[in-house]
């Protein structure tokens, strides 16, 4: 079965205010969107485990018109603190690329 990076044409992450990160998964077709947008590989629980946050706080929005899924989660620490490594959260999508669909 494919990995996320095999069925998405574009994946990005960005800060959404100082306290949230948002990840956009753009699938490469209506078919791959239909097949995988609700897959357990990208469930709130999986996202929560990867980013070390509570699953109940993870927000998921399938956007059919754009064949994409938006996933937002709270930052473990607010943007710009002592241990900041990615001010704009622009590289936070990378661990998702290797997720394996069923």
């Amino acid at each position, binding site marked *: 079965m494919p990995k996320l990076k095999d069925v998405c044409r574009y994946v990005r992450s*960005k*800060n*959404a*205010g*100082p*306290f*949230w990160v*948002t990840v*956009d998964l753009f699938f490469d077709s209506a078919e791959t969107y239909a097949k995988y947008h609700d897959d357990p590989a990208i469930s709130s629980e999986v996202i929560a485990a990867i980013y070390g*946050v509570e699953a109940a*706080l993870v*927000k998921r*929005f399938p*956007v059919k*018109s*754009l064949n*994409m899924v*938006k996933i*937002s989660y*709270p930052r473990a620490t*607010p*943007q*710009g*603190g*002592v*241990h*900041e*490594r*990615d*001010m*704009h959260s622009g*590289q936070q999508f*990378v*661990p998702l690329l290797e997720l394996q669909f069923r």
Partner: protein
Amino acid sequence: MTAADELSVRVLVPAGVLGWGVRADEIAAGLDLKPHAIAVDAGSTDSGPAYLATGRSKYGRQSVKRDLSILMDARRRAGIPLLIGSCGTSGCDMAVDDTLEIAKEVACEQGSALRIAVLYSEQSPKDLKVRNANGKVKPLAPSAALRDDSLEACSHIVALMGPEPYIAAIDAGADIVLGGRTTDTAVLAAIPLMRGANVAAAWHAAKIAECGGLCTIHPTSPGVMMSVDRHGFTMEPLSPQNRCTPETVSAHMLYENSDPFRLAEPGGVLDVTDSHYVAIDDRRVRVTGSRWETKPYTMKLEGAGGGPFQTMMLVGIEDPAVLADVDSFVARMERGLRQRLVRTLGNEAGKIDLSLRPYGWNAVSGRAAGAGAPPPREIGLMLVVTAPSQELATEAARVSNPLFFHFPVREGSELPSYAFPFSPAEIERGQVFEFHLNHVVHTASPFELVRTRWVDVSATPGKAASA
């Protein structure tokens, strides 16, 4: 068709942010479409807490002045108002005043008489403590209820204004409105709302236009025109060579938003779940079906202040013996540095935070690189020392220097020398700044936390009167 049906309110949005670099050719093309106003946002928390904590602008003074000159000249020629929100990045009072100084300078150079309304929305911790005690301040997810010490930790606190103070300023005859912190959308929605356009469409158009050309196929072409009427809105790029498509317009709702369908604003929520995006031609997009839900009036609070201080050092490493096992090298070095700090600085060492970040290996994420990852060709190893004072952070970096520079590849082996790019090796980074507020405050009116000041600039160069 009645006159009311024909209503169309056009706002020229020259760029996503003042200081980005507006294009005179785009502004000229935009003025041909007879806009009712020019509006642009000038701020954000996007680049981190330093700008609000210090009140300093992210963009250079010359970048802001250049854009302001072009926009003020266009405003004067077209005889329409210019609205600028969140002046000076953070929109705190000193940032607004810095922008006002630049605007007065430009006005004098252009020899034009004008009335500037200046809107301030910086808040005092003392006043907010009272509002909090009265139950008027509420947390936003994932934060907890507001504590007084969070307010005290902020050097600047701003409340995000809605469109109402801008509308009032234009009604009272302002040629230019320079606003403190405002929602990105409110400054663009103000004129359409004032002139009776569809409320949901005005907010939705403003949300799409807030980053300028990002809703077009050529995001580096910065200007767009939003036209809002009784039923919906139309978005088009200013440049004749650029295009908006239903995809580029609808996709902009995703950008830097945690929710792609619902956007909370002062006094309501924009809901675009059922919005419909249609191409009118090959460069304009028409949007209908957006909804606005009126809610109790709230203003979001932003606050930031200074924390501890940092000093950093960087070495480059190409030695294959180190690169064969970066993780264990870094782990051993961290233990070694920690021991050296305790030995040299005693109890003071307990106040110091050390962070080793091997760029080229796993510094960006801090996650384990994973079994089987091939060795990198080189790494840049960054040491970040954090301490309560700059002096202590720098002292700790200097104490660390010999070990950081010569750390042996294996226990007991000869001492290598890694590649320092600078002398002195340590770089004082200054203070760490932190965001402290993620809350909204309920207000009885949109003006309760806003102060308006009028500045009249006469046509004679060098004269500006403040009221």
